[in-house]
């Protein structure tokens, strides 16, 4: 056999392999799209037609015009609330975690080890366990029934992981870089903001994304804390479509697709930072 043919076969095999896995990965998405177009609310159709019989966009129109059944909150308001909460959670997590992680990474101080371990413990508690204390604390602060309260609650869940994540990354940034900066006349603060932070953009982007996703998708704390429909988020209203027995699956599917779009946008925006190189060739030679 010629080498070319072997190469070609290899290519065909590789492509077949990749296409197979891609198909498996996108199958659920196709299923959801198909469900959202179905005029009959069927969760598990027994035959799979990507475009079902009498396909209609009615479900999309319905959820966009009245996402929360019981109260006329405009979709845009819910979108704004969600972006506010998710963005707020992400920013607060990054702000708190990057400074804390820097301290944990660079300084030796009493309680350092215990502090780090303590964060792991809070991570191990299921979200429901922190629900009651969060409820009490936020009520005492008079922010329970607000979006700010929600941001604080979500950040309290995502900060520990973010600190570990960022600390691990800061550890890989050579100390020499900072020392050089300090010798050149930077103070600690400048070394952190001008050297460490720009170098850590990939890790910060990941932390931001985690915080954003956390705030975007969460509904359990939100349903426990909030009582004003004008404060509701997209994830809450999506979850609310699920009835005790009956769920309008077409609308549920349509709304899930709509909700996933902003996350995709954020992901694409952050992607280049996540991929871009680590220390950008800082300590060559």
């Amino acid at each position: 056999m010629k080498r070319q043919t072997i190469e070609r076969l290899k290519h065909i095999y590789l492509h077949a392999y990749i296409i197979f896995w891609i198909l498996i990965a996108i199958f659920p998405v196709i299923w959801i799209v198909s469900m959202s177009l179905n005029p009959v609310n069927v969760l598990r159709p027994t035959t799979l037609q990507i475009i079902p019989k009498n396909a209609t966009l009615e479900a999309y129109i319905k959820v966009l015009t009245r996402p929360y059944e019981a109260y006329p909150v405009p979709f845009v308001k819910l979108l704004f609330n969600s972006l506010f909460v998710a963005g707020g959670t992400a920013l607060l997590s990054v702000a708190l975690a990057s400074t804390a992680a820097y301290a944990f990474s660079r300084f030796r101080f009493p309680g350092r080890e215990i502090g780090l371990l303590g964060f792991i413990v809070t991570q191990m508690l299921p979200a429901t366990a922190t629900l009651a204390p969060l409820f009490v604390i936020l009520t005492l602060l008079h922010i329970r029934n607000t979006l700010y309260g929600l941001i604080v609650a979500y950040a309290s869940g995502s900060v520990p992981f973010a600190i570990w994540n960022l600390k691990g990354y800061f550890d890989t940034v050579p100390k020499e870089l900072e020392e050089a900066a300090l010798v050149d006349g930077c103070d600690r603060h400048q070394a952190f903001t001008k050297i460490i932070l720009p170098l850590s953009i990939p890790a910060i982007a990941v932390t931001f994304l985690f915080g954003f996703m956390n705030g975007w998708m969460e509904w359990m704390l939100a349903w426990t804390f909030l009582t004003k429909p004008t404060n509701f988020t997209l994830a809450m209203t999506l979850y609310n479509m699920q009835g005790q027995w009956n769920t309008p699956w077409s609308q549920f599917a349509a709304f899930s697709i709509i909700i996933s779009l902003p996350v995709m946008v954020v992901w694409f925006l952050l992607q280049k930072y996540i991929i871009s190189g680590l220390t950008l060739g800082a300590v060559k030679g």
Partner: protein
Amino acid sequence: MKKVLVAVLMVAMVATLFAGCKPKAQPVTLTIWHSWSGSELDVLNEAIAEYNKQHPEVTINQLQVPFDQLKNKYQTEAAAGGGPDILVGPADWIGDFTKANLITPLDSYFDSTFLADYVKGALDQVKYKGKMMAFPESTECVALIYNKSLVPNLPKDTNELITLVDSISKGDTYGMVYNSGFYFTAGYFFAAGMKLFDDNYNAVVNQGNGGVLALTFLKKLASDPHFIVANDYGKADSMFKEGKAAMIINGPWAVGDYTKALGDKVGVAPMPAFADTGNPFAPFVNTKDFFVNANINDTQKKAAVDFIKFMVSKDIEQKFFEKAKHIPSNTKVDTSSDPIIAGFLEQMKTGVPMPIAPEMGAVWDPMQTAIDSVLAGKATPQDAINTAQKTIQDKINAMRGQ
């Protein structure tokens, strides 16, 4: 500070002046939490609007909460001293709420002439330790829902059911999809003679052979290729809607969607009797109820009860029945127009009220495990029911701190 005081006094004086000439009702704001959706929600909104016409001084705020978050949300808020004035939920929440002192006993608000119009079974269910802890709005139970174009005649007992199903199944159309969840199968456990509790709410599920009989029966259905027996609500639901299953067991809440998918082919009848004992299918009968928050003051409580009385009046319950297929707790409601509801009412006659004691919470998972393990062939009916008995009793003991 002084200015404020003066202003307040002035307002108070002016107010008393006016109060003298025209008695005006104090404005009241009531909050109601519920998980009603679709046509139920429409009826609720209509009812609120109508109530406002009669009582312009009352503002009613309703909040829809997903069903599986509602209990938790209410418990958290009410335990912290807050929460809505009125809550809508199933009777099996009564045990937990009463224990934690989150709801108000309602006996003093309803007299016997008022209560005389309501289904006795429903009123019995909301009684806990001798006190009426909620007011029933509607009742529900599961029954046989069938596709009239696929089922030629209704089976009287389970033997007839099996022969019928075998004769009407063909190709990818199944005779019956049976949800094996304990809520849906309980009717046969009770028909077989099983009891859940003794008088002191200790578990007795393995006494007698009821549990074994029922589990053996379910296993027999599961091994018949013309039945689909699975604890899978979505699958059963989809198959029936697509006309690929001739019969299904489900409750009144599902009928709206089924008629949307199948039109007037949908019929409802009692489930066939249990052939081994000859007893009728005895499903759990549950009520949807109005609860009144224990944290609110007496004026609020009175206002809340007044609204509840309006909600369970003949007119409003008639609307809930006609538009949302609620089975009314008010006996004055005319249900004769609807053969579907008549089917559920017929089934209800042989039903048993779902226990509202907190001990009931210990039953669901172990019984489900028993059913699942027998259907999966991992345990014999006898072993499964013995394990269930032990797990339930352990849970009950743990609940009592023993």
